[in-house]
């Protein structure tokens, strides 16, 4: 009898943990609250320091998850309840109604073309539209549609109904109900990842006030060939190509008034986005306002040097004090002090500003912790009390990996995810060390 392991969260950490656990012979139930697995890594254009195309390296793993005989995907689902103790947890999975028969839907997209409801796309960070019936991104796994009940005219107001008419596979079912699936699980893995801090909480940086201030994830979507601008580097206010861009690091991180901790990956991804921007538009000039340039991994320092020497990126060690409108709606004015105590206050105009906000433990992290009655640490991450087991939470049989435990990059998340598989095998082999 294969033992069940429930993995909560299907970003890269959850996906890797599921694959390793499944390869070891455990029966994995991978729960993801959005319609597709993939997490934030699916939104990235490229990954540092190799600048591999993110989706190209991620999608084979996503497909392996879908095809693995030992993995059951529960997408568009959330954890309803967790009871019991190791090795007999009882997990209730709330599979939300998608109003689509997954056995019939082939993801062809005929319905999307006809749907009249437009909603800001979560995947595109609000920069473009999706429909009420939608596939979050082209490489979504499972490649099945979802109807977002909140925005569907049929489900809310009993109007429209076009998708049902258009669907040749007969997959639309407006009467579908969500359901709760109850499972016994021997081990639970928490891989709930991160959310970007909403930078409107820090109005001095102009997010939500100045049109040409975007978040780093929004910039990632702009750079992406499958994104809202087709990879064309343009600024939101007037769709013109920006020439002078700047990044502001540590927006809300390393900040006594917001979050004390360092989000670990922003120095590197800002460098990456700068390099990509200059590859898209060789004439751009980029400035990165930073505190410490944390390039600690393999090939990271060389990556930063490459940005400086081959791509002309200017690194200025200063925290901007204020960002305001420059010319009406277009561009921004950044005020900062030049580095050092004898620095001078300076204001510089930029066509576009990218903020690197703090990466927070996701809302799901908080919800799961509450459900399990577990304390999070002062920064909101799961505690791992025993140094011998960096993936064990304070409750036996509940393992954590990736950003749910601490800010970390993709390779560290993947290592932790595999580590979770080892610990599961240890716990369930009866070997107690």
């Amino acid at each position, binding site marked *: 009898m294969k033992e069940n392991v429930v993995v909560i969260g299907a970003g890269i950490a959850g996906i890797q943990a599921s694959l390793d656990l499944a390869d070891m012979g455990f029966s994995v139930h991978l729960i993801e609250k959005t319609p597709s697995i993939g997490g934030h890594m699916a939104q990235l254009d490229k990954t540092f320091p190799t600048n*591999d195309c993110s989706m190209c390296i991620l999608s084979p793993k996503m497909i392996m998850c879908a095809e693995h005989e030992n993995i059951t995907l529960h997408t568009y689902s959330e954890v309803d309840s967790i009871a019991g103790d190791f090795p007999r947890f009882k997990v209730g999975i709330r599979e939300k109604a998608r109003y689509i028969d997954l056995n019939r839907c082939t993801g062809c997209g005929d319905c999307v*073309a006809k749907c009249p409801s437009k909603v800001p796309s979560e995947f595109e960070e609000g920069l473009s539209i999706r429909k009420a019936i939608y596939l979050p991104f082209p490489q979504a796994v499972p490649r099945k549609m979802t109807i977002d009940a909140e925005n569907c005219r049929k489900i809310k107001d009993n109007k429209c109904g076009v998708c049902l008419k258009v669907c040749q596979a007969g997959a639309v079912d407006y009467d579908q109900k969500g359901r709760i699936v109850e499972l016994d699980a021997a081990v639970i893995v928490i891989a709930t990842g991160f959310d970007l801090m909403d930078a409107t909480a820090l109005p001095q940086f102009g997010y939500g006030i100045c049109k040409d201030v975007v978040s780093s994830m929004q910039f990632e979507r702009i750079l992406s060939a499958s994104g809202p601008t087709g990879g064309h580097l343009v600024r939101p206010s007037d769709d013109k190509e920006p020439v002078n861009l700047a990044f502001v690091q540590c927006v809300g991180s390393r900040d006594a008034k917001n979050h004390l901790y360092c989000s670990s990956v922003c120095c590197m991804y800002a460098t990456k986005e700068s390099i990509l921007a200059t590859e898209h538009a060789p004439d751009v000039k980029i400035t990165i306002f930073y505190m410490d340039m944390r390039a600690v991994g393999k090939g990271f320092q060389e990556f930063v040097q490459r940005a400086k020497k081959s791509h002309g990126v200017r690194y200025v060690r200063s925290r901007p004090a204020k960002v305001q409108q420059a010319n009406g709606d277009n561009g921004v004015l950044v005020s900062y002090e030049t580095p050092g105590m004898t620095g001078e206050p300076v204001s510089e105009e930029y066509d576009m500003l990218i903020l690197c906000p703090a990466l927070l433990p996701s809302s799901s992290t908080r919800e799961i912790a509450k459900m399990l009655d577990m304390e999070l640490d002062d920064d909101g991450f799961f505690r791992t009390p025993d140094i011998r087991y960096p993936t064990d939470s304070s409750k036996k049989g509940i393992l954590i990996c990736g950003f749910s435990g601490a800010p970390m990059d993709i390779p560290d998340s993947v290592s932790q995810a595999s580590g*979770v598989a080892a610990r599961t095998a240890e716990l369930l082999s009866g070997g107690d060390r």
Partner: protein
Amino acid sequence: MQRVGVFVCHCGHNIGSVVDVEKVVEYAKQLENVAVADHNLYSCSEEGLGSIKKSIRENKLDVVVVAACTPRTHEPLFRRACEQAGVNKYLFEFVNIREHCSWIHAKEKEAATEKAKRLIAMGVAKASLLTPQKEGEASVIPVAAVIGGGIAGLTAAASLVSQGIETHVIEKEARLGGLLNNISVIGPEFVETEPLIRRLKEDLERSPQAHIHLESRIVELGGFIGNFDIKIAEGAKTTDFKVGAIIVATGGRELEPTNVYGFGKIPTVITQMELEKRLAGGAAPSSAIFIQCVECRQPGREYCSRICCNVTLKNALRIIRSNPNARVTVLHRDIMSYGTTAERLYREASESGVSFMRYGLESPPKISEKEDGASVEVFDETLNENIGISGEIVVLATPIISQEGTAETAKLLKVPADKNGFFLEAHVKLRPVEFATDGVFICGSARWPSHVTECIAQGLAAAAKAAIPIRGGKVVIEAITAEVDVERCAACGNCVLACPYEAIEMTVIDGKRCAKVNEAQCKGCGTCVAACPNDAMQQKGFTTRQLGAMIDALIKNCKEEAVE
């Protein structure tokens, strides 16, 4: 003569709205060797697969061509369908008319239809020449070997043993523990190392599944995943054993500073490890100056050693905690206290009175000896002036560099190392603890300088990866491997050199010298095929003849079109 079946997929409107599928099917019907051509709305659906299988049986098809989306999504699905219908799964050819055609030529329907015809003509030409292949299987010896008994290796071994897997630990020193034997406390949580190492050792010592070999090193290593032969020299004797998986955990070492900052001349200038020894012994200096980034993050050694800032923060706080009046200064070029607990440690150090001064690579601190210590002059970039400080000791934070003997280990294991001597993993992002060579894994500072918690996580990860084939009991050997045509081989050795997996050797077959591919190690990458000057090396499933036939079919189709 192979009977080829062609199945063109509409993929809903993805292909169907751009390519005229019916026209393409008619075209396919008249291609040479095509016995039947049909189309499906969604080939990957239950219905589509069912109709393909039915057609295979009814039309007694030998080979199947599906023209649809990308093989990355559904190739395994269609191969399974072929097998279920009685056709060898390698007698299947996938033609991509979605990503390669309808999706990129969405606005040129006529041209896209013509292109789809061409792609299918090429696919049929190749399919006509396909031969059945068989995947091999090798059993896996249910034993693992861990090379290196430091924190990463001990964790990997303890995890494997706890999972019930027999494990050999091969350690070159006389005791386990690695670098942590000389470090008593680790940050950022100020955990004592002795109980940590002791418990891991005890986990191993009390298990009958663990074999610890001290003062040992590997002298010979052969084989491939599932079947490695290892010979070690253990003191005076040699021991042989077979394992199914190997984990490299050979660690790193502290760079001994060369002639910088007065090291070797001024006795109060010491290394971080020397400081660890003194602090463990109860030393409580009244003042200390730490210099970070010594001989790294500069031309000649560009990398950042990741851990030194946090080690300095820990030791700075240890000094202050043992002597609250101590004056501690840290001269740095960035403080790399990434994450949660480390960043808090930085704050705590700063609030406890540790001074942080930023210096630039172009103007390094200058040291001179003093009667009771040393004095340091540094150009502080923040204050923009020269500052003089004195300290009882000056601690040089040098990087972790690759372990001695890495080149030999790399050669023995047939794994690569990067230009800094750290082992090179299979993929820097998504396969951090695996080597490209199957069955060999890496963890800890042998891969990259890592904190203790990171070494432990990686040790667990490597243990999981090693456990997978061992638990599975067998490994599948890739069917699409390279193959030598002995007749044509000129024994030039290009393939031996080109193979990234060292899967080819020069041998003698029936008195003739030629290359030979070890199929278990071959990953089917095709590099040797490209390197062979005589066309003697062929890739199964992608032979020169098959690829040539595709080109011929394309040219024929283009000529036909020109005539039209």
